[in-house]
């Protein structure tokens, strides 16, 4: 067994040392009737690396990889080019196989990286402080709602959700709220060229702890965050801005700058990759430093060592479960450490210049695609505004079209029918995402395929 270093000689020497006649003597606390005598039935026996690799490769080849298709999916997960050096760094054993940095003297590598990461996220989001990451965007969104409840000290029980919040994010919030007994005020999304900011603002009242707005929204549109922030603050509610495409923030103003109190989002676009949905990277930041002690998740802070040298530690852990147990701000006890590293390395490679160029290249190609697709007979472009993702209407159920195009090797986008199965009036909408990995040929391939399908 290639992962087990003990030899049979070792095993018998060690059994002798511990004074056990055989290995089962060490399992004597397990009731005999429950103890298994042999390997569990129905499962295969051990296999060589070669055999396992072959099996997994066979399964891998049963999927259509994004890079092997003309690819236009988004809706909260984006295909971007990730520099090869990112993967090199995250495979360094010292990062890959390290533990949570609770022993700072021998974990400065991870800790300094987290401190840099927190600063990068805070600046990207226009906030004062970001944490060391959460599971993903959707759980970060729920944690933000829970935090808003803590800020309101339980005196406000209403959570206003934008209708154009990613439906899976909204579903996570609704699921959790069932148990915390918060009232969720949401509205169905509508296929309008611009988000319904007025309708959203109208739902905010004095009992509202927070308003949750996605920016850009699930249809790719840009809500007027500054105006919503003002309206929320007027009623004493916090504005939670949700961003699922961090690359957008290289082109558009940060939510913090526009008045959002808590900014959360999905960091997957930078450094992490598609991975069929996970692991991803939840980003979480607050604009006002006074909210720091209400935050969930790990925080890394600067300090000095006994010789006065700068160093970093996990800090403010009195908020966390391993200290506070049932009084913790969250039950979370990991972060998405290696994904945070990937994000931070990629962001360091980009820098401000690279991020802005990347954003503009995404936007340029998206504009190109929107205009090209709008010329396909039967297609209408919905959005007044967008960054790298927009909605087109096909005049027929988009799910059918998506499946038909997939058979031809074109991954055309995410149908609104899949995202909102209960809203038949959205069924002709197709969400199309375009990034720097999209070539002009890809756009032409999609346009022609749509032409063929809609003719």
């Amino acid at each position, binding site marked *: 067994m290639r992962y087990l270093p003990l030899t049979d000689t070792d095993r018998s020497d060690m059994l002798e040392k511990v004074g056990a006649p055989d290995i089962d003597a060490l399992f004597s606390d*397990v009731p005999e009737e429950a*103890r298994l005598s042999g390997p569990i039935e129905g499962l295969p026996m051990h296999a060589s690396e070669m055999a396992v690799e072959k099996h997994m490769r066979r399964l891998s080849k049963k999927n259509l990889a994004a890079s092997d298709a003309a690819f236009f*999916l988004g809706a909260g997960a984006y295909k971007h080019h990730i520099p090869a050096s990112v993967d090199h760094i995250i495979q360094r054993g010292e990062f890959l196989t*390290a*533990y949570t940095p609770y022993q700072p003297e021998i974990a400065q590598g991870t800790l300094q990286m987290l401190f840099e990461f927190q600063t990068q996220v805070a600046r990207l989001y226009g906030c004062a*402080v970001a944490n060391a990451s959460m599971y993903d965007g959707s759980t970060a969104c729920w944690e933000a709602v829970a935090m808003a409840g803590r800020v309101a000290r339980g005196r406000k029980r209403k959570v206003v959700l934008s209708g154009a919040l990613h439906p899976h994010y909204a579903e996570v919030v609704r699921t959790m709220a069932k148990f915390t007994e918060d009232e969720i005020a949401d509205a169905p999304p509508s296929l309008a060229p611009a988000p319904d900011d007025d309708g959203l603002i109208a739902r905010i009242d004095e009992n509202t702890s927070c308003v949750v707005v996605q920016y850009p929204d699930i249809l790719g549109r*840009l809500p007027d965050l500054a105006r919503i922030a003002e309206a929320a603050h007027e009623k004493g509610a916090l504005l939670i801005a949700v961003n699922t495409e961090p690359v957008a923030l290289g082109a558009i103003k940060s939510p913090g700058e526009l008045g959002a109190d808590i900014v959360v989002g999905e960091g997957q676009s930078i450094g992490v990759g598609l991975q069929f*949905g996970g692991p991803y990277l939840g980003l979480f930041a607050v604009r006002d430093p006074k909210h720091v002690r209400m935050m969930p998740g790990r925080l890394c802070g600067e300090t000095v060592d006994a010789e006065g040298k700068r160093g970093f530690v996990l800090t403010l852990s009195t908020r966390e479960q391993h200290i506070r147990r049932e009084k913790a701000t969250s039950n979370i006890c990991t*972060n998405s450490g290696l994904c945070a590293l990937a994000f931070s390395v990629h962001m360091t490679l980009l820098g401000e210049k690279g991020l*802005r160029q990347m954003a503009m290249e995404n936007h340029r190609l998206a504009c190109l695609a929107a205009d090209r697709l709008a010329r396909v007979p039967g297609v209408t472009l919905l959005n007044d505004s967008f960054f790298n993702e927009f909605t087109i209407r096909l005049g027929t159920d988009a799910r059918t079209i998506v499946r038909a195009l997939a058979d031809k090797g074109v991954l055309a986008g995410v149908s609104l029918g899949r995202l909102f199965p209960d809203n038949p009036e959205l069924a002709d909408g197709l969400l199309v995402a375009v990034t720097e990995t999209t070539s002009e040929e890809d756009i032409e391939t999609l346009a022609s395929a749509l032409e063929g399908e809609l003719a």
Partner: protein
Amino acid sequence: LEEPLIFEIGHAETTGVDFPTPLPGGEGAKARLAGMERTDPIGLPGLSEPETIRHYTRLSRQNYAIDLGLFPLGSCTMKHNPRLNEKVARMPGFADVHPLQPVDTVRGALEVVNELAHWLIDLTGMHGVAMSPKAGAHGELCGILCIRAALEARGDAREVILVPESAHGTNPATAAFAGYKVEDIPATPEGRVDLEALKARLGPDVAGVMITNPNTCGLFEPDMKAISDAVHEAGGFVYCDGANFNAIVGKVRPGDLGVDAMHINLHKTFSTPHGGGGPGSGPVVLSEALAPYGPLPFTARDGDGVVHLVEEENAAEFDHTRAFGRMTAFHGQMGMFTRALAYMLSHGADGLKQVAEDAVLNANYVLRSLEDVLDAPFGHSGPCMHEALFSDKGFAEGLSTLDLAKALIDEGYHPMTMYFPLVVHGAMLVEPTETESKAALDQFIMALRSVAERAKSGDESLKTAPHYAPRRRLDETQAARKPILAWNDPDMV
């Protein structure tokens, strides 16, 4: 050489990524950003690729890691991470597929999820599994929400969850997060759950118990079946914290002991890398009573052997309308599933049994090799499971578990888990795992013996350890009192 921060060496105009110069003008270049263009500087420094590689390579060398040495963290199960698994996770059909691709284009990925689900079910003797939870604590929450949903479905609102005092902090935090009141169950002097005290507390207000088995003292709960029976009889459910499953995988199935829900930390038992704090993955196996309430999405194989993704859209087709909801946006930690499956296939049923046996043998070897110099509070209770528990009894006045642990750093080792479980004074919980050789254990035992002797003899130099690490002891009080959580340009302050 000290490694500066990227903010101290990078520049806004430097980049390690080249983009094509955008075409000037042109029909596509019209900005449709609703007047929201970002104009102010963001403050993100860039580095060229050579500088980037060097910065992170140097940083990495300030870390301790499994690849460098034994990691005796009790309950954290820091074991070897096979490199095959890293290779498998990067296969394009897994790493480069979008979660919302048409299911016909991701059947292989769904098969991975489903195959892993079946391994988990078979290894635990349970009925179903929720694959989407993102980490152990997320899985705990999922399990507790299943219990809550099942109780509500029968119109039986209960408000208390019982948790042993030796439990991980996540247990009470989770129960509280799910809206329950948390009450402690005491431990016996032998380090086990007090069965009689538990029975006495059961009643119509108790939704369930959260038990860790093997427990955090490193002992198997021999009364587990009796506990389950009592809880079930009182109308409650049994949640088992699966953090220590590594000790018993292939040796006993939690389902056979009456467990209703248990999360499995894939990184602990199934070797996905810890990554300096995550990402984790926490699938939750469920009993027949709880399985109908498991969250969306999940996978299911139909009669023709085709694997389907079950989401809100098609839950009814799969008779799963009682799902309590959704815990995350997509389908869970695919990148961890591929690794864990590769690990299970590598070990097979026989190898996984050997994993548990070697893990327990290694821990007992450490326990018996050190109990003459370190107090082992439950050493007389018989063999331990996969971790050996010691206390600070006998240390010289003024020297603590922390001092011993920091001195271990100077010997070239990461400290063991300290001050946990709370039921033992100055606890030291040592878990070597099955991937350590006897030679590595002997070397570690020698090092720990030496620092233990120094702690007992009152060697004051322990108080300032470590002396040979990249940093001396760090001032955590200052960090918390005046938190500096982001870099600010000193020139701008």
